[in-house]
């Protein structure tokens, strides 16, 4: 279904980011980049969101939080790891409390590298996430037909 790709609603979660990537995520909403052109809305509510953007590495404290946010999202859903910390842990990878990238906890669909990730690459990552979302939607439909 085309409309799945035309209206991706985003939930943004800050793992243990230095706020560099967070500011770049918010920059996407500004008039210069204006992601609402693609129907993207920053929802701030897991039950409304299709795409979970996570910035920063995952640490021992926020594992349950990240998991709960993911579980509360309705199917089909996609996870996009923004910035090098979210993809691998980055320079914080060796810290005693850091578990590593988001993929240690959740199934990540798109990795967006960069420190901080540029708004252009964030938008690119979300658009890549859309095709993953479309595939998941088709898989769900297929599953529903089989049942």
């Amino acid at each position: 279904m085309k409309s799945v790709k035309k209206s991706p609603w985003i939930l943004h979660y800050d793992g243990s980011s230095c706020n560099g990537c967070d500011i770049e995520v918010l920059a996407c909403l500004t008039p210069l980049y204006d992601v609402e052109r693609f129907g993207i809305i920053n929802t701030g509510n897991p039950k409304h969101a299709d795409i979970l953007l996570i910035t920063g590495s995952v640490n021992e404290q926020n594992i349950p939080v990240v998991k709960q946010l993911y579980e509360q999202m309705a199917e089909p859903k996609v996870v996009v790891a923004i910035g090098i910390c979210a993809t691998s842990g980055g320079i914080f990878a060796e810290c005693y409390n850091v578990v590593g990238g988001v993929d240690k906890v959740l199934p990540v669909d798109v990795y967006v590298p960069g420190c901080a990730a540029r708004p252009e690459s964030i938008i690119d990552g979300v658009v890549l996430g859309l095709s993953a979302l479309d595939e998941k939607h088709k898989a769900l439909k297929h599953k529903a037909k089989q049942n």
Partner: protein
Amino acid sequence: MTLLITLAIVILTPLAGGLLTGLDRIITARMQGRQGPPLLQPFYDVIKLMNKESMQVNTMHRFFVYAALVFAVFTAVILLSGGDILLAIFALTLGSVFFVLGGYASNSPYSTIGSERELLQIMAYEPMVLLTCVGLYYTNSSFFIRDIISSKLPAIIYLPGVFIGLVFILTFKLRKSPFDLSMSHHGHQEIVKGITTEYSGKDLAVIEVTHWYEVIISLALVYVFFAFAMPLSHLFAVMACLIVYFFEIIIDNSEARVKWQQALNSAWIVTGVLGTVNLIILSYFR
């Protein structure tokens, strides 16, 4: 014939409401220096939501939003087919009450706060809606819209104060700033997603479609003030509706959200002053 008209109203009303909402989003974006989404974006959103999983918090949670939709459709059919405006307004209020109950049903703190705020909003705008009906009856001696829009003079001539009061409280009904306390379209935090916080998938789509009906219902009340026996006046009335909607968008983009005390006080002061004074003056001339 009646069946055909009803069917047309049920289908065309949300289409018009959705298009207006899309236009609203583009105009809002342009006012903020952005390009904005495509015109059909609200439809893409709703179709997407239809295809998503709907999470059920408890058994009654979903029932209430569907009940709210049924009453919104009922109101639209009565209003647009020229029926009794008083009956329409009561049905609309019942729909709003169902929506509030839906917020309370989930037991989530966010939607409970949303429901409480929605109740305050209903308290704030309901007196003015009733005064509008009273005023229209006072000028035309009929609650039926088909009588009101075929009178010799438009109702706006008798009821300018009531009309301004109605435009004031339409900000609540259209969920625009400064009176979007319970559920905002621009909410980035859970608390201003209010009642809708716990809804997802199809249920959220139903809430959105209900809002499209409410947009058209609100504008139908504006229409009634301008339309009269002259055929050309109906075109003028449609233009008046669009101007009022554009005005609401400007207010939405230039005003910050107010506290509930200010929302309630200002709405009641406007109702008390403009609405009742207008009716009192009218009573001297008749």
